[in-house]
């Protein structure tokens, strides 16, 4: 009995001293990633007997290895994956040797599932990149290598797999390795260890192969056991994003979060960002224990010695060495959604514990993943990797991704589908937020409003071509003018021919068109005017962007609702006829969508109601404060 206790305690002691390596396997379709992991688990004797029995059964049914055990079936856990013999999503598997614990993410090779590969790579310390010896490095091998490099993986094993199919030929192996090293030169890997291998037959996976006497490097498992990929940021400066404020009663106010770098002890002075307030650490709490210090990766609750304004999304940092705070960044971006990313579009951005509004202000370029060439980026399509600039609506504390993954990573979230559409890494701030204090003027919007005797705002008309937007706006302006309201109409005639004459009708240009109009309207509101804009403005995302830019309360969305058939029947300018003949590409309602407003402030039925009725309906809703 005592023996058991001692043995177990000794074992647990040893176990707790083992470190953990998280790695991914990646590469192109059919390079043998899943087979390799199956082999690793099998050789590490982690496949239990009942799983082997089930596996043998399944191998007979779906297997691609004749009667032999098909190891890929062990990791391809989804029915669709087993049927098609491919990997769709990343699978996480666990094993341990006497030297290390491992979590391996087996990632899919197909291009369409690249986002799932990026998911696996984002938490990995090292990568095993597989290349099929009979095929060499393919586009997907390069794309995966590039993503690994961008996501900060610095240690790579280049597993030249299926060596059994080329008779373990050294020349073939050397050629593949030298080609890959040439390709990988511009990537940010610290080291690349090539290993000739056969995952199917087990050569150089765990046991050294007799068939490669010319190879003197480590087997894959000994590489993984020894690679020094420790990513701990314990020696960096202290950073802790606040997740939650703990207030059980009036006497206790604790800040809960995970330390993402450095360490902190009782009595240390910290700063709250972005506000900049300073306080000292009173206590560090982990459940019923009070700790002397907290280190990187620990999840704790901290109390401070004085009242400060601090809530979720703020970051506690070392007071003498705070993070930068900024609202404009250059970022690396991996696009992961079917719907492309457009310049000027607005998204939710989530970084550490903060969520803010973000706009892609410029798409600088995207990469040709085969050659690393920079290509023009009119938009970012699914699986594109590029560089962009981005602005957020409120300053955030950050670190460049290269020096601190947690403080420099973010995801973009679509406002409508709620999908995670992109992963991003901050390179640097374009300007420091603290340098952008705007000159405060004495004569401001409020002063002008008093002089004018009415509030300023934008009346944003939207609807199909021919719905009657301009006619209604015109009639409304006459009424307002007669009542002494200062007005101005922005429409296609005065904007398209001047300010926006460089823009066409592609999706990107339409977005930029609306952005500029919204900016002009904003200036005019500041000048004290009631601005009437009369544009089709077909996309919900852009109208919402305009609403955000202008500000809630000063934006009145007016939906001029006429059925397409009615607008097309009227066809005042003959545009629908031309569009139907194919002479006007991207014409809204014909071959480009119109996204109707979900909650417009005013909803006009211009198909049924007269212009006068419509104008009266708007006036009844308006609040001009006069």
């Amino acid at each position: 009995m005592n023996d058991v206790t001692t043995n177990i305690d000794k074992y647990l002691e040893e176990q707790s001293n083992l470190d953990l390596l998280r790695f991914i396997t990646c590469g192109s379709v059919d390079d043998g990633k899943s087979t390799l992991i199956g082999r690793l688990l099998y050789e590490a004797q982690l496949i239990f007997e009942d799983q082997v029995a089930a596996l043998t059964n399944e191998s007979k049914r779906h297997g691609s290895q004749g009667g032999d055990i098909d190891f890929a079936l062990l990791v391809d856990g989804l029915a669709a994956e087993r049927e098609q013999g491919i990997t769709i999503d990343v699978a996480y598997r666990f094993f341990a040797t006497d030297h290390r614990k491992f979590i391996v993410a087996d990632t899919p090779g197909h291009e369409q599932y690249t986002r799932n590969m990026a998911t696996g790579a984002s938490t990995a310390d090292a990568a095993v990149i597989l290349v099929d010896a009979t095929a060499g490095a393919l586009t997907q091998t390069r794309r995966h290598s590039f993503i690994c490099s961008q996501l900060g993986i610095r240690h790579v094993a280049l597993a030249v797999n299926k060596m059994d199919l080329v008779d373990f030929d050294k020349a073939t192996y050397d050629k593949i390795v030298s080609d890959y090293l040439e390709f990988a030169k511009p990537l940010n890997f610290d080291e690349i260890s090539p290993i000739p291998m056969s995952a199917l037959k087990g050569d150089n996976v765990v046991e050294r192969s007799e068939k490669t006497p010319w190879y003197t490097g480590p087997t894959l498992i000994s590489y993984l056991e020894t690679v020094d990929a420790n990513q701990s940021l314990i020696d960096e400066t202290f950073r802790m994003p606040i997740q939650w404020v703990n207030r059980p009663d009036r006497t206790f106010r604790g800040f809960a979060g995970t330390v993402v770098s450095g360490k902190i002890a009782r009595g240390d002075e910290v700063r709250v960002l972005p506000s900049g307030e300073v306080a000292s650490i009173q206590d560090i709490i982990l459940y019923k224990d009070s700790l002397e210090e907290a280190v990187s990766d620990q999840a704790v609750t901290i109390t401070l010695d004085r009242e400060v304004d601090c809530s979720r999304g703020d970051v506690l940092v070392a007071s003498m060495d705070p993070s930068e705070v900024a609202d404009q960044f250059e970022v690396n971006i991996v696009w992961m959604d079917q719907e492309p990313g457009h310049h000027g579009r607005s998204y939710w951005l989530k970084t550490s514990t903060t969520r803010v509004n973000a706009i892609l202000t410029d798409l600088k370029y995207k990469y040709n993943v085969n050659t690393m060439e920079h290509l023009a980026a009119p938009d970012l399509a699914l699986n594109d990797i590029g560089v962009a600039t981005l602005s957020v609506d409120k300053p955030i504390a950050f670190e460049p991704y290269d020096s601190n993954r947690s403080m420099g990573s973010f995801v973009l979230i679509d406002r409508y589908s709620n999908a995670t559409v992109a992963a991003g890494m901050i390179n640097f701030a374009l300007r420091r937020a603290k340098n952008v204090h705007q000159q405060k003027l004495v004569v401001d919007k409020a002063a002008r409003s008093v002089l004018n005797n009415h509030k300023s705002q934008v009346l944003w008309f939207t609807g199909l071509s021919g719905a009657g937007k301009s006619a209604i706006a015109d009639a409304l302006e006459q009424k307002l003018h007669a009542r002494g309201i200062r007005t101005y109409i922005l429409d296609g005639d005065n904007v398209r021919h001047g300010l926006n004459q460089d823009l066409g009708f592609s999706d990107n240009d339409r977005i930029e068109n609306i952005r500029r109009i919204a900016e002009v309207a904003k200036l005019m509101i500041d000048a004290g005017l009631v601005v009437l804009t009369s544009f089709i403005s077909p996309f919900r995302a852009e109208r919402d962007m305009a609403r955000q830019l202008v500000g809630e309360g000063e934006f009145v969305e007016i939906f001029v609702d006429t059925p397409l058939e009615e607008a097309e029947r009227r066809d005042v300018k003959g545009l629908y006829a031309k569009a139907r003949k194919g002479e006007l590409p991207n014409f809204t309602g014909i071959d480009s969508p119109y996204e109707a407003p979900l909650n417009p402030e005013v909803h006009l039925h211009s198909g049924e109601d007269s212009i006068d009725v419509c104008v009266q309906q708007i006036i009844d809703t308006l609040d001009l404060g006069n």
Partner: protein
Amino acid sequence: MDMTHLDRLEAESIHIIREVLAEAENPVMLYSIGKDSSVMLRLAEKAFYPSPPPFPLMHVDTRWKFQAMYEVRDKIAEETGMDLIVHVNPEGVEKNINPFDHGSALHTDIMKTQGLKQALDKYGFDCAFGGARRDEEKSRAKERVFSFRNSSHRWDPKNQRPELWNLYNGRKSPGESVRVFPLSNWTELDVWQYIYREEIPIVPLYYAAERPVVERDGMLMMVDDDRLKLLPGEKVETKRVRFRTLGCYPLTGAIESDADNMQKILLELLEARTSERQGRAIDSDSDGSMEKKKQEGYF
């Protein structure tokens, strides 16, 4: 100070649990009274201490759990100060659905899967914590930490959201809900080590003891109450057994074991060559059966 492997797992889980609070409107923690649930509950207590976890516990009951489980459940709820919601599918009660007459598949579907959906809809929970681990089963190994369900509680494994770093996107459309698995990266061994280290109370059935069992379909079934009717040729034997997982007693096989304390359980586990789900009748129904059940809304 150096963080051990368990410390890191603990910290990661606490981060996930706290993140849910920011992303969800009305979260609930599913509590099955098993060892994984017990660990998850302790992590929740740690995440919010000195406050109690700011969400209720919910047990979707089938009326066929071991008696010892009900006793532990009521005691734990009292000790943590959390609200405990117990839901039993009333249609299942009316039709007296049970594993003996209706088989494991139907019983599990009506009492667990449908019962869970009913309960989530009834209370309007938009986020439910579950104690599932990725090392349990092949389709679990593929599941995200924040895993989405559509308005009919279905999982779409071919179209999961990317989930990078520890940035969890919990935003969802009306009607959708999220299952969150804070123990995703734990293994069975980690769970036991943590229970040992933290001295977390667990149902005594995990420890070996002399218990009345019958052998049926190659499984050792414990005679937990008089609803178990012996078939011709069966006889009740007393054996020294324990359970590696706990569920409905007619569907949960015992294993013969001498492991009557935590050290011996750990030792047994280290020497084990049979993975833990083998004791559950549900998984051997058909190849890929867990994925199918999950798509239909099984946790």
